[in-house]
């Protein structure tokens, strides 16, 4: 199975994602430059974390116009699994592949720490192998992860079961104090209506080996390997 890791100028978690996929999971991985228009036959696309185009204007606002994004959008619309991590999530929001927007963290600080997130729904390519309500300990590293959407959009996301990850405490409770950045309804990650596009602020690729303090993120990548190989979410393609 082949992963494409998109590299924008300013991406800085591209190698982390590549390492997790290639060296930890033993899958094929290719870097794809943002000015390319081909995903090189990849089965899965990862938009990595970082500061694409310096985060100028707004996070992800310029990256969404990179040539590769037209191809990524077409891939997503055809049902292909796309994972946006941190800045990659912000790019997906700006590109309109996921709803809502990011505001500056409530603390007005760049926050770099391990947090707990609860897997809310397992019927996405990236949570397929999770246990029900599994709590993952994975790191965040962002200044603008304060998720915002209008209340009616939030209600629709809940009704459609698109809130895939929520910030929780160690016991799995979505409390106010477990919310690191002020995100609406403790939202840490979402999926598209078709469920194949997933974005999250925490970094599962930085938590794939115990040497890094947690291997809880590995299940995200194992999930997509299994779901793609089983054709579990291939109906729309």
């Amino acid at each position: 199975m082949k992963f494409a890791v998109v590299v924008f100028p300013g991406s800085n978690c591209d190698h982390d994602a590549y390492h997790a996929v290639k060296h930890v999971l033993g899958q094929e991985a290719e870097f794809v430059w943002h000015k390319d228009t081909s995903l090189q036959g990849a089965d899965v696309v990862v938009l990595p974390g970082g500061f694409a185009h310096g985060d100028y204007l707004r996070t992800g606002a310029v990256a969404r116009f990179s040539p590769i994004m037209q191809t990524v959008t077409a891939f997503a619309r055809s049902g292909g699994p796309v994972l946006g991590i941190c800045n990659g999530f912000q790019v997906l929001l700006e590109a309109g592949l996921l709803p809502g927007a990011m505001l500056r963290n409530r603390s007005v600080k760049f926050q770099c720490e391990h947090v707990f997130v609860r897997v809310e729904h397992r019927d996405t390519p990236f949570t397929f192998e999770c246990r029900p309500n599994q709590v993952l300990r994975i790191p965040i590293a962002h200044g603008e992860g304060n998720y915002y959407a209008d209340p009616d959009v939030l209600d629709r996301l809940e009704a459609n079961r698109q809130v895939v990850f929520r910030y929780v405490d160690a016991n799995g409770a979505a409390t106010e104090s477990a919310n690191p950045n002020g995100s609406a309804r403790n939202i840490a990650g979402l999926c598209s209506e078709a469920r194949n596009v997933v974005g999250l602020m925490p970094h599962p690729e930085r938590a794939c080996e115990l040497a890094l303090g947690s291997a809880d993120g590995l299940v995200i990548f194992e999930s997509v390997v299994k779901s793609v190989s089983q054709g579990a979410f291939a109906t729309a393609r």
Partner: protein
Amino acid sequence: MRARVFVTLKPSVFDPQGTTVVEALHTLGFGAVQDVRQGKYFELDIDATTVDDTRRLATEAADKLLANPVIESYRIEVDALAKENGR
């Protein structure tokens, strides 16, 4: 022609930066400042001959890139003086 685009967060959107700034102003003794909303300001030099064309192009630019309609709104002013100066 010059268009000035003012991008601000929608009233319903919490502005952590504006809140920090107003707190700093209070610390400095500006107790009369009741609220601060932080936004963005763009000056666009546009190759157009009429105010209407300038405004139309600036509006397109704001819709497509300068503002995110999920969280922001914008206001455009076209600088008529710049036109008289030949620009």
